[in-house]
């Protein structure tokens, strides 16, 4: 199996760009999608953002200098796209309304999914109350198990800043849960 780097070189050099791109997409699409989904909650929104991310990857891959890992670069695009989306929604007053916890509750109680307790709903609310950067860092660290150097590169911060973001996120969520 070709490495990411080899596929990128293939993309840059060969006329069969789609072949190389499809391989990269297959390899990374799930992680990218789930990270976005955890941030925005709605599948339709996550789908739109993920498509924008991969469109950007297609358009910018020729200029990718391979100074970082491909996955870091894709996550960075995903981070920027997701934060932009959330901020736009905030401006329109559509994000983080009371509907969101109801949506989560519905999803949690759907037939296919696991049953959700009150504490899980409270956890969801706590997660959604975090600033975008803290939330993104928390997801990357806890669920994707990325190291801080990589998280710092994705979110455009220092390693110390990434660590601080993770611990602040946990503290904040704990406080919110206590109040609930």
């Amino acid at each position, binding site marked *: 199996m070709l490495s990411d780097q080899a596929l990128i070189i293939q993309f840059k050099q060969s006329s069969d760009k*789609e072949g190389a*791109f*499809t391989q990269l*997409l*297959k390899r990374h*699409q*799930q992680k990218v*999608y*789930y990270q976005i*989904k*955890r941030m925005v*909650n709605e*599948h339709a929104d996550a*789908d739109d953002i*993920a*498509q924008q991310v*991969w*469109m950007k990857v*297609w*358009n910018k891959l020729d200029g990718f200098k391979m100074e970082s890992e491909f996955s870091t670069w894709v996550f960075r695009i995903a981070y920027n796209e997701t934060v932009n989306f959330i901020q736009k929604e905030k401006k329109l007053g559509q994000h983080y309304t009371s509907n969101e916890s109801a949506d*989560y509750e519905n*999803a*949690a109680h*759907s037939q*296919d*999914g*696991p049953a*959700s*307790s009150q*504490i*899980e709903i409270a*956890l*969801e609310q706590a*997660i959604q109350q975090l600033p975008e950067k803290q939330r993104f860092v*928390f997801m990357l*660290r*806890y*669920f994707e*198990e990325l*190291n*801080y150097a990589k998280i710092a590169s994705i979110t455009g911060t220092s390693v110390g800043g990434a660590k601080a973001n*993770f*611990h602040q996120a*946990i*503290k904040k*969520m*704990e406080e919110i*849960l206590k109040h609930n």
Partner: protein
Amino acid sequence: MQNKDNHKELQEDQAIANALLGKENLHSWKEVNMQVPHNYFNAFEANTLHKIQNVKPSVRIFTIGTWKKLAFAASIFAIVVSTYLLLPSNTIQKSNATAMSMQQIPNEEIAAYINENDWVAEVDWHTELNKEEATMIIMEPGIQNDSN
């Protein structure tokens, strides 16, 4: 060595989060967010490729800074002004040159040129007159017919 440290640090971080927020809660939350429509990722791949194939190449819009805008405007102004100032003087020079050359031609040559071409003009004149007369002759009976 660094990988070991990273792994240890990760475990510590996860342990803190589990202790404060509840491991089961976090994992249940993760599972809820893992739900996607059936065959979603295969469709996603196809949709993305379809979108890429159908997107027209983007048009690049160049934005220029303030000083560049000023320089651009100044150069356009300079071109317009110089064209306005230089064009009439060129035209005058050309017309003067023509006038000078006409003056240099001897009168005899001009007279000879007129004389040589005079009969051509006369022939043309007579031809035209004959044509008009013929037209008038043809038209007259027609007018009579109409009046009848």
